[in-house]
């Protein structure tokens, strides 16, 4: 069974192996054991509320419980830009027009911006290549929206993701070659690595502070601003389906876009409902396509778990699950769980929206037991 849970100490080896296989371009998860260990420590501190809420880094592992291996990771950074300065370029427009001469020229510009400061970022998604497909990527990504929804006060109202920008097979970025390299006396990979290590004062020292007029850059560089790497297109489509939109900010190195959404507008959040667990021995066919599955979370802050079940398990008040699934989620019959479709446009029983939930909560007579995992997990 594949289950989402907080990243924990034993995950280091699997994580390192994944990072090694991922190669370049994933700067938030470099193949560096010390750095990965620090991330694990920080994630553990975060889930156990041993660090400032704003400094939290919520990292989730996808574990294959049959083989006891961690096969994916995804995360939420509670706030960016608090310790190090968080830089983007804002893609803006400068219009110069002279009525006298009948000239009207629009020049896109890149202006340095720290506007994402203090916003929650979804980040660090990585799935072992032998687990790709079958909705595992969706689970790894969307479990975060269930967490965001459940614990909103720990996060900003708006969340964002930085999407990897265009680079070629050799890791060369057209925007870097045309812009960054003129100011930073280093290769793109090196700058990206330094930046990923959180070593950012060099950016304040070396980068251009005045707006960059795009008309002065070569077409090859202009063409990639706000564009994602082709390997990142599926991730972008997934986020767009969730309601994320390009917000005009791009990465200062490769021009990759920043997409953002209000938490309350995220599709998974809007479509999620709560149900009560009904543990049953009645077998259900677990191997159904992603479109016919739902995510089920145990609503726990400290020991958050999510797995998937076939949609027909979800009733109007309950969700039926086997004892094995209940054990993996750490729930019992009568516990409240959150349920949301795994795939957009997937089958979804009953009225969409949170109305279902409200109905339940106004009819407490039907509830047998209700306890919040966020207080005891």
């Amino acid at each position, binding site marked *: 069974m594949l289950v989402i849970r907080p990243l924990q100490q034993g995950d280091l080896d699997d994580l390192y192996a994944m990072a090694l296989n991922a190669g370049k371009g994933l700067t938030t998860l470099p193949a560096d054991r010390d750095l990965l260990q620090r991330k694990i420590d920080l994630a553990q501190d975060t889930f156990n509320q041993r660090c400032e809420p704003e400094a939290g880094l919520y990292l989730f592992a996808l574990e294959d419980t049959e083989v006891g291996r961690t096969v994916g990771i995804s995360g939420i950074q509670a706030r960016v830009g608090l310790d190090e300065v968080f830089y983007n370029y804002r893609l803006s427009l400068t219009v*110069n027009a002279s009525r*006298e*001469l009948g000239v009207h*020229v629009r020049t896109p510009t890149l202006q340095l911006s720290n506007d994402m400061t203090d916003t929650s970022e979804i980040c660090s998604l990585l799935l072992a290549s032998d687990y790709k497909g079958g909705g595992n990527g969706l689970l790894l990504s969307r479990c975060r929206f269930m967490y965001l929804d459940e614990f909103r006060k720990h996060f900003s109202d708006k969340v964002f993701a930085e999407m990897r920008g265009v680079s070629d097979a050799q890791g060369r970025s057209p925007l870097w070659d045309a812009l960054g390299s003129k100011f930073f006396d280093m290769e793109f990979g090196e700058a990206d690595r330094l930046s990923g290590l959180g070593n950012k004062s060099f950016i304040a*020292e070396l980068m*251009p502070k*005045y707006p960059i007029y795009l008309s002065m*850059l070569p077409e090859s560089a202009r063409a990639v601003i706000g564009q994602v790497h082709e390997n990142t297109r599926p991730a972008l489509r997934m986020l767009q389906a969730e309601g994320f939109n390009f917000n005009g900010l791009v990465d200062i190195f490769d021009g990759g876009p920043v997409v953002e959404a209000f938490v309350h507008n995220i599709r998974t959040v809007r479509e999620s409902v709560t149900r009560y667990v009904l543990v049953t021995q009645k077998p259900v066919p677990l191997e159904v396509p992603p479109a016919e599955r739902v995510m089920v979370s145990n609503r726990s802050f400290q020991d958050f778990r999510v797995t998937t079940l076939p949609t027909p398990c979800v009733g109007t008040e309950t969700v039926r699950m086997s004892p094995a699934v209940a054990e993996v989620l750490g729930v019992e019959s009568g516990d409240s769980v959150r349920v949301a479709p795994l795939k957009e446009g997937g089958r979804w029983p009953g009225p969409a929206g949170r109305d279902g939930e409200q109905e339940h909560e106004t009819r407490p007579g039907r509830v047998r037991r209700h306890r919040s995992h966020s207080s005891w997990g």
Partner: protein
Amino acid sequence: MWLVRPARPDDLQSILEIAGAQGARLSSTLPKQEEALARKIEHSQASFAGANDPELPPRFLFVLEDTRTGTLHGTAGIDSRAGNGQPFYNYRRDALIHASHELGISRRVEVLYPSHGLTDRTLLCSFTTRPERVGTEAFELLSRARMLFIAEHRSWFGSRMVVEIQGVQHENGRVPFWDSLGRHFFNMDFQAADQYSSLLSKTFIAELMPPNPIYVTLLSPEAQAALGQPHRLTVPNLELLQREGFQAGNYLDIFDAGPVLEARTDTLRTLVTSHRKTLHGSHDDSGETCLIAGGEGSGFRCTLARATDTLEGDVRVPVETWHLLEKSAGDTVRMAPL
């Protein structure tokens, strides 16, 4: 004989001919449109006559005449206040040091700042001659006659002077700096922008020019190479001005990145070396050739003469020179060595 005198309305066609012959090769602040040129001559006449409307600062236009034939061979101008009451646009070239202590990196980042720092200085402008006159004594007369005019009317001008030298332009008319920068914002070719600049109010520059500093490293290599470089054909003029004491500073032309020369008015060679003398006759055609100027305002004339310098405050020149200057014995003239 060569004579420099204020331009008159009846010079219009001759000036148009000279200005037109420059074509795209060598632009200047001299309008090529008849109506605009007529207005410029009219304004110049008023300025020579001493008019000083605060809205219309004095602008002087001189012509170089071959008095034997009556034909004109060149023009030269002085704007008493660069920008003529509007902002005078330049780029100021400066460098920022981008250094990272931690990484041990230090880069010199050149930046072009939009600047009006030279606004209201006295500007030498509109300097054009027929090609065959370039580098001759007449060429020098035309250029330096302006300094003698300034010396004679010192209070009309500022303490600091500037001259814009045309920048690099290829034979085919392409201007590398314009193509790399201005074209993107003005959406027109260099010639059009240059013409508008001499014809229209500067509002269009405020409207179209990129308002933020420009990083030199983002310009094309060709444009970078052209920064502060003079056009090949302006070199004789440039060298003459350098001998006069003008030096290139940090300012560049906004359209072609040509150098802007600067000088303190009172240290210009012609101002320092020229002296007032009392005019006397000479039948001798020996002596050194020098610049000699007389007359105030509209009456200003300047020519070349073989002068024999007899006593301290006197100068002897051929009587023919008296006539050109419209002066006679005992009158005061100003002379400077060539």
